[in-house]
């Protein structure tokens, strides 16, 4: 039973329901609505190249949410995310591919079919892997899932009827829902949209769905079971959480997200190549989760934005901070591209050294400071 909220007392909860609500304070309601509205109007004030970058980030965020569910919420560290991303991407590409192509397998199906299918295939693979998680813990599990990436690469390389083979690849699944194409410029409700604008809106919509589903899952019985397993799996088992089932579920849900994200990312980029689903990709997703904030959905999105936009930021660095860039590159010490790579590594290190809770932790600090302002607590 929802009870009336007292004005001016945002943290006074009078029922369990309002305490565990999705948006449990008025500030959150307003804030989230504002952010979503702001993002929704993105196509009108961002340039096309920024929009396609953001579309990539949104698709990546879906994958990051998936990884955060298994690693952050359920505590099962997985370095195998790249494998599931690849599985989703190739499933989508195969189901959508041209049936008349002699070189590759294809079925020419709609996005309404290939998107869920990409998730389901990845989820089934997750189910197959999950017994390893039941038997192993911590770093052992991390390295076994790392092995999964290498085995996955081998499979992708060998199955060249499906993946197009290493170095060649194939076209990704096209974003086409019931005949409406998101991947070409066109008009919608009388307004003209470019291709990045349409993809941006599609990805934003799917991200909102994925994020809300993730938040809901985290606060449900399953989410609490995940947290119990993460905090102390033996204790969780003692109070009646089925470990085998919970871990399998965590891997399946996470892989489902990864499959969907992989398919969407491929769609935004357009071409997929089996060699791209390597360890580095897995590490990027782990970095998204850690930099964003472990066991937070909003953190996963922030982390995905950060990691996806970072290369662009470092690329533009010489233009925006000519003095600093000159200092580093001017004496032939490092080229701009090398500077970008070093910064990528160094920023990850610096971030985790100074704020291990990630971007979400920065927000918590900021919020707590202003909550008590002008007093320190």
């Amino acid at each position: 039973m929802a009870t009336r909220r007292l004005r001016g007392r945002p943290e006074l909860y009078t029922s369990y329901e309002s305490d565990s609500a999705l948006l449990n304070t008025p500030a959150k309601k307003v804030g989230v609505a504002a952010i979503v509205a702001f993002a929704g109007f993105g196509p009108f004030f961002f340039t096309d190249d920024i929009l396609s970058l953001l579309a990539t980030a949104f698709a990546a965020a879906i994958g990051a949410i998936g990884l955060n569910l298994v690693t952050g919420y359920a505590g099962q560290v997985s370095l195998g995310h790249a494998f599931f991303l690849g599985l989703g991407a190739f499933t989508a590409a195969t189901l959508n591919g041209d049936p008349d192509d002699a070189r590759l397998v294809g079925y020419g199906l709609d996005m309404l079919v290939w998107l869920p299918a990409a998730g389901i295939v990845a989820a089934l693979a997750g189910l197959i892997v999950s017994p390893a998680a039941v038997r192993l813990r911590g770093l052992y599990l991390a390295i076994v899932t790392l092995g999964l990436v290498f085995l996955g690469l081998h499979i992708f390389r060998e199955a060249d009827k499906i993946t197009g083979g290493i170095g060649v690849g194939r076209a990704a699944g096209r974003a086409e829902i019931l005949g409406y194409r998101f991947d070409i410029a066109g008009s919608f409700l009388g307004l003209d949209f470019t291709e990045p604008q349409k993809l941006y809106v599609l990805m934003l919509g799917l991200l909102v769905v994925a994020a809300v589903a993730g938040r809901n899952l985290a606060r449900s019985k399953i989410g609490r079971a995940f947290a119990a397993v993460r905090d102390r799996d033996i204790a969780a088992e003692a109070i009646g959480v089925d470990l085998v089932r919970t871990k399998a579920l965590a891997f399946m849900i996470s892989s489902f997200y990864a499959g969907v994200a992989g398919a969407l990312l491929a769609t935004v980029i357009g071409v997929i190549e089996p060699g791209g689903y390597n360890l580095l990709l897995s590490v990027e997703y782990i970095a998204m989760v850690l930099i964003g904030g472990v066991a937070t959905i909003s953190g996963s999105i922030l982390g995905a934005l950060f990691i996806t936009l970072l290369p662009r930021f470092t690329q533009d660095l010489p233009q925006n901070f000519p003095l600093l860039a000159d200092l580093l590159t001017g004496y032939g010490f490092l080229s701009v591209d090398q500077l970008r790579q070093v910064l990528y590594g160094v920023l990850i290190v610096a971030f985790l050294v100074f704020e291990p809770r990630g971007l979400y932790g920065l927000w918590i600090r900021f919020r707590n400071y202003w909550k008590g302002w002008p007093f320190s607590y």
Partner: protein
Amino acid sequence: MTRFIELVFQGLGTGSYYALLAVGFVIIYKATRIISFAQPALMVTGACFVVAFATDRGWNFYLAVLLAMGCTAVVALIIERVALRPMVGKPVFVVAIITIGIDVAIRVFVNRFLGADVRSISDPWKLGGVSVGGVRIQQRHLAMMIATAVVVTALFAFFKYSRAGLAMRATAADQETALSNGVSVGTVFALSWALAGALAALAGTFVAAGANVNQETWTVALKALPAIIVGGLDSVGGAVVGGLLIGVVESLMGGYQAEHLPWLGSNFDIVSPYVVMLVVLLVRPYGLFGTPEIERV
């Protein structure tokens, strides 16, 4: 049969650098409970120092290797002091990701040194071989096996008989107790990283011996990960056994798989270490020699 023996020796040769790398991983793990993903970068750094000393400056190869081990140990010390020491007590996965960040950053400098070419380390063995009763064994593989045997024996003696080795064992057993008994745990951390760095440099030299160093060399070090898992994360002896096992399996797979198991696809030997790891873990979740975790609720 001759072919089989040759393949086994080749496997033991490559297995010995996996073993050296794996021992480095295990030493760091035992001291700090962290798996250092910076090991690949350290390995290539070591090989690059050898290139710089032996090839570019033309110094004696063995001297160059010793110097490279020392220099890489210093690099490892700096990494430990700057990036890892502030993270003591933080969640292990955060620290693991930090080591990945370090790996990425160091490899940029290494690649800059290497350039787009392949570089030789001017090793004295090249691809020369010795024949014993019709079995041809490459000199470099013999050198790797002997060097690894010597280094590992020295390490075991160090852990067993020296004061520092005792301090390291004490820290591995229980950090707080070691600290309260006057062991400088910080020094142990530094020493572990230095040892791991020196071992990685030696491994890097062997990886490049008879071959070369290039921008892709670092991926070899990742195969030491299955080795430590097979051997058990916290067992130095297990790391050696695991490394050799992985090397032999990989070599045999490379020799026979295309002929007898073609359905596994080409170049299956490259991923075979990971399959071995999965099989071992299904039977023994803590590896062959690892200590099972006993948990209190």
